[in-house]
């Protein structure tokens, strides 16, 4: 077993354990903090796969912005910081069935895939994944159209948010 595999197994164990804690933690703020551990583990996985840019973006966007907004929302909307209600609702068996079906389907799909036992091909020396990604995002025969469409979508969301929150003069 190589060191890389050892790091991968440790990371995977941390991700699975913390993901279980997100669902089972009674305290909502604790659940949000466990979620951060899970997201950080995903960033480590990206870093192992030589995708440094995506790893850093994962930390900046998910931990730096989204997780902190989660914590804010939990802190500001709860009167009691602790949630003492039941953790399951009436539809729990339905979601359990769906989870089992999805897990079974994925396992069945991955059974025939040979990528699980193959070693990763070595990157050519001097390969810059960031440069390759940026060229792909703006080149017309790669992803320029999806990239621009996503930008327009985000801009529309931004304008919509400003319109909803905007106070006209004299309106209180």
């Amino acid at each position, binding site marked *: 077993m190589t060191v890389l595999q050892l790091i991968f197994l440790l990371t995977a164990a941390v991700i699975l354990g913390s993901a279980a804690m997100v669902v089972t933690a009674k305290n909502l*703020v604790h659940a949000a903090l466990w979620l951060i551990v899970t997201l950080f583990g995903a960033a480590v996985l990206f870093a192992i796969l030589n995708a*440094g840019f995506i790893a850093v*973006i994962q930390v900046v966007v998910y931990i730096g912005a989204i997780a902190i907004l989660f914590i*804010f929302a939990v802190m500001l909307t709860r009167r009691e910081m602790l949630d003492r209600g039941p953790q399951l609702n009436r539809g729990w068996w339905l979601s359990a069935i769906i989870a089992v079906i999805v897990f079974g389907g994925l396992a069945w799909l991955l059974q025939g895939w040979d990528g699980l036992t193959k070693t990763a091909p070595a990157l050519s020396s001097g390969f810059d994944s960031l440069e390759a990604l940026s060229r792909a995002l703006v080149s017309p025969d790669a992803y320029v159209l999806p990239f621009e469409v996503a930008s327009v979508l985000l801009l529309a969301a931004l304008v919509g948010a400003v319109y909803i929150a905007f106070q006209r003069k004299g309106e209180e």
Partner: protein
Amino acid sequence: MDFWSNPIQAAGDWLSGIFVGWGMEADAAHVLTAFIGILLLITVVMVLDIFLVWLERKIVARFQDRIGPNRLGPFGLIQPFADIIKLIIKENIYPVGVDKAIFNLAPIIMMMSVLLLWAVLPLTSFLGLDLNVGVLYLIGVGALGTLSIIMAGWASNNKYALLGAFRQVAVMISYEIPMVVALLIPTILAGSMGINSIVAAQSTWYIVLAPLAFVLFLICATAELGRAPFDLTEAESELIAGHHIEYSGMKFGLFYASELLHTFTFGGFIAAFFFGGWRGPWVDQIPLLGLLYFLVKAVIGYWIFGWIKYTFPRIRIDKMMDLNWKFLVPFSFALLVYVALTNALLRETSFYAWGMFLSNILFGWVTLEILRRRARGERVKVETAQKPGF
């Protein structure tokens, strides 16, 4: 390879050679050597941190016309060690209702977020990882610092602590935007996001090519560090101490030490981005000289932060948000476009450095003129509204 051109690499190779000789696998030995290197770097940085406490107290004493610590040892150099002994033997207090695990974790994550920055700090041409996303890494690690503050504020079960944490998080999230844009300008000029490549590309220091980006980065870094005039998280007159109000002993010491080390680290980043980092005379012949140049420039950066902290009064929170969203964000975007354009136009010409400097001065002058017109207009409006006869 010549030993003195890269002593760290040579020492690392020697050490992993010994481990392999003991029958260890080659890549396992490599990982172990890397861990030993990380441990050494952290130890050196923490010892440096002890002397930063002394330096900080000497700087503030100078600004307040005092002498500062001068009793223990020469120039009071032993004073921080006495402080550490005092902090360690203090009682460890848990107030009622704290969330113990998070309460204890917060100062550790705070310190960690600062130490992680040292991975990409270009100490010399061979020390410091040249990550191809170095600039973004800087921002991502800052997010961990934000997280630790909100953890400390929430776990303390104290209204002042929570208010301080909310303020600090709001400030950090908003000032991150102009900071990223300010850092994109050295990235454009150097054509790389790796911090060591940015230093290597500075045949002319970027303080000459992009002085406005330097000012922008300085303002945003002061806000990110939570130091005066932006220290609203601690605002003694309103919040007593903000997020670390309930901490005692060494846990408070960790917050204090990480603030000082964070400031020094940002002094180092200012040196790397705008003052040529480890570049200096004869550094090509003796690469180790770069370490000395870098540390001198970083201490100057640290002193600039101290100068700002002890000179300006604290700004009100709403004024601070106004400054960011109504001025710095649009200004930074306009500056980014402007610098990218002038850089593309002037790059091949013989007056590149002068052209960039003068065009930046022109941009700054136009900005100031627009601001002055607006301020004058608003003042006239207020004055005419107040006069009863009109």
